């Protein structure tokens, strides 16, 4: 081979470095930014971990000082822990339960760069189906539960079909579905409430999510202790299960790929339409489980419940650092986001603040979370 033919030799004088995505800036801020890029749930976890001791110090200052021997009992007005108590913990868990479950459904959809406005309506309608099938038609409660779950999944399938096959924007599809399901819910139920006592005596399976799975502390009858309900346990297992599936299964990676860039995903051989439909069906099914859990939480079947579940779930997802543009974020972040809302709500109430302050602070958190998301995105651009 003559030197003239050796075209490779022209490279000898050039840089040998391969193109790389290594971050050249080594400042602390840049490293933090890059950390957040890799672990988007970190921001919400940090906020949560800061909020808990801050509220604790504000609310339980006196009993804390007393416990540490800094003050005498007669110098303080209250020696009972209100925030750092098992009971408050179980209240917060119970209050987060519904938002946490619905939030999981919402997170899946948002990861595909969609949004699901119909989650709350599907949840309530499923709970009404479970209740009315049992009490109006006298079906066995197990059949009613399966019917309720099926209806939830069906609503999700219709959403998914319209989004994936007919190519309608998710916002519009689920806006329409929200109205349709809610109206159907009111028409079908005639807004009749099924009482907690009737359900407990005839169809207690419907309330299973409200039963205590185990109790920490308290006396023999569980009084004064913290109840971990079946619903809370379900929420935690659901989130862990989904987090695993999203991270470690082909389906999960496809969900991220579809959310990040559907065309690129399609070209790489991902079944984009199938993945989208599966996500919406899953979302509907999870919402139906949330409807079942809702009966456990409020005892009765009430068609007027859950009106704000769609907004609350989007709030949890956004505060949890899941990008509304799809393809990035962790479902664990969603659950931290839900807990942030729960801790702020309970904390501010115990501080005696007007309920509006809670909404104001949550509004600030939402905007801050999206701003942080935009800032993190600069790492990749």
């Amino acid at each position, binding site marked *: 081979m003559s030197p003239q033919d050796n075209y490779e030799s022209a490279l000898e004088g050039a840089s040998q470095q391969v193109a790389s995505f290594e971050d050249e800036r080594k400042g602390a801020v840049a490293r933090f930014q890059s950390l957040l890029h890799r672990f988007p749930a970190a921001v919400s976890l940090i906020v949560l971990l800061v909020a808990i001791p801050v509220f604790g110090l504000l609310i339980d200052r006196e009993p804390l000082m007393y416990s540490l021997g800094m003050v005498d009992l007669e110098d303080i007005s209250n020696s009972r822990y*209100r*925030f750092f*108590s098992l*009971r*408050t913990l*179980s*209240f917060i868990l*119970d*209050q987060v339960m519904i938002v946490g479950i619905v939030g999981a459904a919402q997170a899946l959809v948002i990861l595909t760069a969609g949004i699901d406005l119909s989650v709350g309506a599907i949840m309530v309608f499923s709970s009404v189906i479970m209740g009315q099938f049992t009490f109006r038609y006298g079906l066995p409660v197990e059949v009613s539960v399966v019917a309720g779950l099926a209806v939830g999944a069906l609503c999700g399938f219709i959403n998914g079909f319209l989004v994936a096959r007919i190519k309608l924007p998710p916002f519009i599809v689920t806006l329409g579905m929200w109205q349709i399901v809610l109206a159907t819910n*009111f028409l079908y139920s*005639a*807004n*009749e*409430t099924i*009482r*907690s*006592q009737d359900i407990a005596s005839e169809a207690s399976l419907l309330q299973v999510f*409200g039963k*205590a799975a185990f109790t920490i502390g308290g006396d023999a*009858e*569980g*009084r*004064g202790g913290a*109840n971990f309900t079946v619903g809370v346990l379900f929420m935690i297992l659901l989130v862990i299960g989904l987090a695993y599936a999203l991270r470690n299964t082909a389906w999960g990676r496809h969900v991220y790929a579809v959310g990040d860039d559907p065309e690129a995903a399609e070209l790489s051989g991902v079944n984009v339409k199938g993945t989208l439909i599966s996500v919406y069906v899953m979302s509907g099914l999870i919402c139906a489980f949330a409807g079942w859990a*809702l009966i456990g*939480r*409020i*005892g*009765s079947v*009430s*068609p*007027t*419940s*859950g009106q704000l579940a769609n907004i609350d779930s989007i709030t949890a997802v956004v505060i949890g650092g899941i990008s509304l543009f799809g393809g990035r974020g962790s479902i664990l972040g969603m659950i931290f986001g839900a807990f942030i809302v729960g801790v702020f709500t*309970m904390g501010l*109430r*115990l501080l*005696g603040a*007007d*309920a*509006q302050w809670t909404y104001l602070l949550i509004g600030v958190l939402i905007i801050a979370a999206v701003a942080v998301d935009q800032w993190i995105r600069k790492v990749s651009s």
Partner: protein
Amino acid sequence: MKKLLAGSAIALVAATGAAYAGGHATSACLITKTDTNPFFVKMREGATAAAEELGINLLTFAGRVDGDHETQVAAIETCIAEGASGILLTASDTSSIVSAVTEAREAGLVVIALDTPLSPIDAADATFATDNFLAGELIGAWAAASLGDAAADAKIAMLDLAVSQPTVGVLRDQGFLTGFGIDVGDVTRWGDETDPRIIGNEVTAGNEEGGRTAMEALLAVDPDINVVYTINEPAAAGAYEALKSVGRENDVLIVSVDGGCPGIQNVADGVIGATSQQYPLRMAALGIEAIAAYAADGTLPQPTEGKDFFDTGVALVTDKPVEGIESIDTAEGTELCWG
């Protein structure tokens, strides 16, 4: 300009409509906050029955959700255009609706506020409503009498309606405290009381979910609460679930207002100690009769003596009557219940 045009168009339609209706049967409108709440469903039943009996043509309208003001305004405009003799209205937004109501009255319709007074109350020709203050007073007095000496160191949770303090919620709340024997301070607002027996006020949106969450918040503030006032029976059912979760459902007195059938059943089952029952059916039926009277000879309905509205009655429902407070039992309450 657009508004002015629309206004004159409506006035024009109203004038022709009224002339047109002259030779026909009397018609009346019923406009409710929603058509899903059993309370309004019962109201429509009462109005429909009374209208049939009197040969009146009844048109019914409802907002899509509680707070849907625009739909109610459109409904009033439709009624003016239709040439109805009168409107029965439960307003979602009691002050904003006044301009539409004034328009209707100027067009010659009689407007009767049902259940919810307008602000100001004289913006309507008449108001047919439950005395919500009295409804609260009855359960307050019953709770105090049931507790006896223990009322002096009761720990009271107040589960109210909404942060915006709608009048119905304020009246029931302040009535309850008055009946219980607690100084209410400013009677037009809840939450300004200084009596240490009140552990706190929380809002429930009047449903089970809100009732439970609110009760949990107050139990976190003080786990020894033993009296719970609730704005309505769904909120009471939610509060009961929260109490049950901490094993305190049997040693807390819950009182409420409304008289819906599930609520009365809860009184019978001991979930709620006592509730004040109101009568939407009677409210609407009386309203239709008043419109018929107005259409016949222009008679305007008169308020109950000593009150600025026509009192459609309220009864205390409990199976544990106390001396000195008139009440009916749950069997009678069930016959009269709605929803």
